[in-house]
């Protein structure tokens, strides 16, 4: 369980009372406990996904159920081993996972690890783009809302934040696509790059899979522009989801900080409100953002599934939907386990950071 704390205020004015240093007792134990909590979490998740995927049916029936006589279909299911006792399959799978063998996807016959590496980079790229959008939108608007608190601009921005958070990401994506791609024709409809750029990226000696990075490395500015153009709408659709959270968080923290004694002291000295916000109140308000960014990873990955599908952004989320439709449980298990690892590790890091910042959370 992650504890979200208020950041210590800035001591820019030298007005804060000195604090006793924490002894730091129990930090090692705390970190160890948090680390080992990842394992049962992962185990429960792997188990749940395994059994849920078995409930929705096997891939052979999904692909060939409409063409084969039942006896032939049953034979093929038997040959593939899908009719063995479920617990036998389960323990076999656990054994494979424990040795790092995630198997081969059923529907397109590629090693799961290779598939995760291929599509993981695309999701990573989208997540980075979305975080950039969230920060660029959330922080300045949060500061503005705090600065104009209880005025019309503040009300509008708070409404905007709620709208960002509440609007389903696929709906936002469709609206953006309709407006900027279909009606205005300013931006590409879908995909990560045009065919020409995709081919150029594919021809690189050792591509990272993160297109803008590959385009930069190759010095291909036309490709970089093309990649950026393709990245805008998905990044905005997904980024706005988190931007709303950032906006409200920054606003709340800045307003909270503006009520502190040391800020009041500054105010009484005639320091302007704008300077108070931008120099004194905003820095401490930004620290919780780091914590929240960690907490937002699950939201971001969940949103990525919908965003990638909407924009044909061929990452893990996009593939997850494809594999789910085909009942490819080997692939789905691989993707879900990877996503779970990302979320669990991120939360662990956030917990550790929180414990380092505020010793109180260790007890």
């Amino acid at each position: 369980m992650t504890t979200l704390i208020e950041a210590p205020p800035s001591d820019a004015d030298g007005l804060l009372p000195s604090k006793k240093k924490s002894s730091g007792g129990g930090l090692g134990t705390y970190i160890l406990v948090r680390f080992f909590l990842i394992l049962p979490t992962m185990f429960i998740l792997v188990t749940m996904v395994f059994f849920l995927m078995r409930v929705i049916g096997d891939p052979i029936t999904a692909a060939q159920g409409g063409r084969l006589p039942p006896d032939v279909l049953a034979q093929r299911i038997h040959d593939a081993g899908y009719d063995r006792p479920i617990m036998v399959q389960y323990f076999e799978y656990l054994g494979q996972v424990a040795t790092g063998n995630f198997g081969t996807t059923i529907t397109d016959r590629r090693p799961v690890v290779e598939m995760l590496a291929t599509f993981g980079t695309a999701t990573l790229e989208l997540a980075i783009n979305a975080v950039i959008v969230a920060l660029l939108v959330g922080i300045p608007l949060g500061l503005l809302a705090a600065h104009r608190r209880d005025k019309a601009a503040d009300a509008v921005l708070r409404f905007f934040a709620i709208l960002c958070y509440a609007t389903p990401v696929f709906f936002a994506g469709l609206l953006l696509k309709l407006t900027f791609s279909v009606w205005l024709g300013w931006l590409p409809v879908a995909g990560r790059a045009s065919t020409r750029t995709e081919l150029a990226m594919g021809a690189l000696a050792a591509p990272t899979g993160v297109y803008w990075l590959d385009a930069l490395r190759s010095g291909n500015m036309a490709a970089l522009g093309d990649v950026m153009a393709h990245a805008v709408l998905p990044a905005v659709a997904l980024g706005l989801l988190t931007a709303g959270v950032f906006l409200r968080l920054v606003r709340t923290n800045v307003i909270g900080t503006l009520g502190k004694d040391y800020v009041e002291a500054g105010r009484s000295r005639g320091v302007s409100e704008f300077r108070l916000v931008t120099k004194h109140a905003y820095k401490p308000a930004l620290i919780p953002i780091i914590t929240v960014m960690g907490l937002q990873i699950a939201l971001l990955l969940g949103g990525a599934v919908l965003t990638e599908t909407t924009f044909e952004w061929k990452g893990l989320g996009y593939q997850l939907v494809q594999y789910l439709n085909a009942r490819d449980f080997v692939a789905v298990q691989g993707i879900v386990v990877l996503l779970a690892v990302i979320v669990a590790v991120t939360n662990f890091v956030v917990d550790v950071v929180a414990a380092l910042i505020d010793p109180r959370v260790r007890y």
Partner: protein
Amino acid sequence: MAMNKKALQCAIALAGVSALALTACTGPSGGGGGSSAAASGPIAYGTTDKVTALDPAGSYDNGSFMVMNQIYSFLLNSKPGGADPVPDLAESASFTTPTEYTVKLKSGLKWANGHTLDSKDVKFSFDRQMKINDPAGPASLLSNVEGVTAPDANTVVFKLKLANDQTFAQILSSPAAPIVDDEVFPADKLLDDDSIVKAKAFYGQYTIDTYKKNELISFKAYPDYKGLLGKPANDAATIKYYADPTNMKLDIQQGNIDVANRSLSATDIDDLKKDSKVKVNVGPGGEIRYITFNFDTMPFGAKAAGADPAKALAVRQGVANLVDRQAIADQVYKGTYLPLYSNVPSGFLGANESFKDAYGDAGKPSLDKAKKVLADAGVTTPVTLNLQYNPDHYGKSSGDEYAMIKDQLEKSGLFKVNLQSTEWVTYSKASRADEYPLFQFGWFPDFSDADNYLTPFFPDGGFLKNHYNNPTVTDLISKQLTTVDKTERESTIKDAQNALAKDISTLPLLQGAQVAVSGSSVKGVDSTLDASFKFRLGTVSK
């Protein structure tokens, strides 16, 4: 990590401005070589189909077969515009005895990697297909092959179990029959896509240049190709894969791809017909949709309450008299499907319209006929029908299709229809386990022959397991399969359809059309939309 905050702020600002500047300079770019591509330049093709595997032994689906048709060859194949198999890698091919089919190969054939292509490769291709017998593969199509021999470098002899199999030439151009390089492919297991691409184990109009599975494939014309299809009309092509047909539709409208094929929705196609920037090409389709009657569990079926074969037949005939196929084709499918009045769709040898002759009023529903057949059999109306359909396997319009069928049947006052739907995996099993008295099903042919709409379906209940068994029909189907004389075979196929229309094991409803949308400057798409159902990128140019 200590970092100068000002520098960081500057970097972020600079990155943001750069991104905006770059973005502002860049509009959507055209695929496949861009908008300035000259005639016969690269062609960009879009699809929502998926590739399972490039190894012919490991896949049996449209997406994989489409790619295979560009990079592999067959002993026999069909020319664009037709569906009759003619020599491709072969110089000649024919039955030399009733159970021996002998193929003479062209000489001097070379794989793209420089290896020699001869009878050793051919024998190897068929042997491994049967040996691997992959659950997701097409080996079942070779069930009539007893063995393959290669007496010399240019000769291959197929020993068949069933004499004079009239579908065998089609089998040799089917998904079970692409010829592969015996020096690259393993004899007893599948080869992964990347290894195939790396080994350049291609002999077709094209070789694969770049391969990103189910994302993007780029092809280059293979200069040493000597097969049936000849030199492609373009020097290169790409296939772009989509998940959402709407994105594909928008890309064809914006000129980012040159061809969009499989599968746009009926609504999208209808919309595209009004767009002057694109052309909607329609060709014959082999896909059919039909209702299956379970002869045990349908009203008055053999194991239903009040079992009575005459009344059960009257119920089936009543339904056949009331269904308005044209209305479904026009209103639900916007002309992307056509009315189907027989078990064998039009375009195939012997296809007739047996249901149109036997039921309704020249293709229109007939309430009077429906009333009469039910009354004559002493059936009390309304008859309750539990009709199942599947909402996720046969397209999003299935719900509308079956709502319309329910409406057509109920407005007669003769039937009360309980419409039910189930997700595919459960549906496909339950439908053949006597759980559904009437149910929707569809079919896409394995190869282009009328037999493929008969043999899998009707002898001994076929794969549908609906307890239909008429020895007369079975005999007719067996007879047409081995009748060498084409005219006689055609007549037998018609007889089989007429007999089937009397029994109504299944009620044919719709026949799908092939629909490919192309840019207005794109040529050659219509010539590949033929009854072979093979899309050949080599016919397309711009």
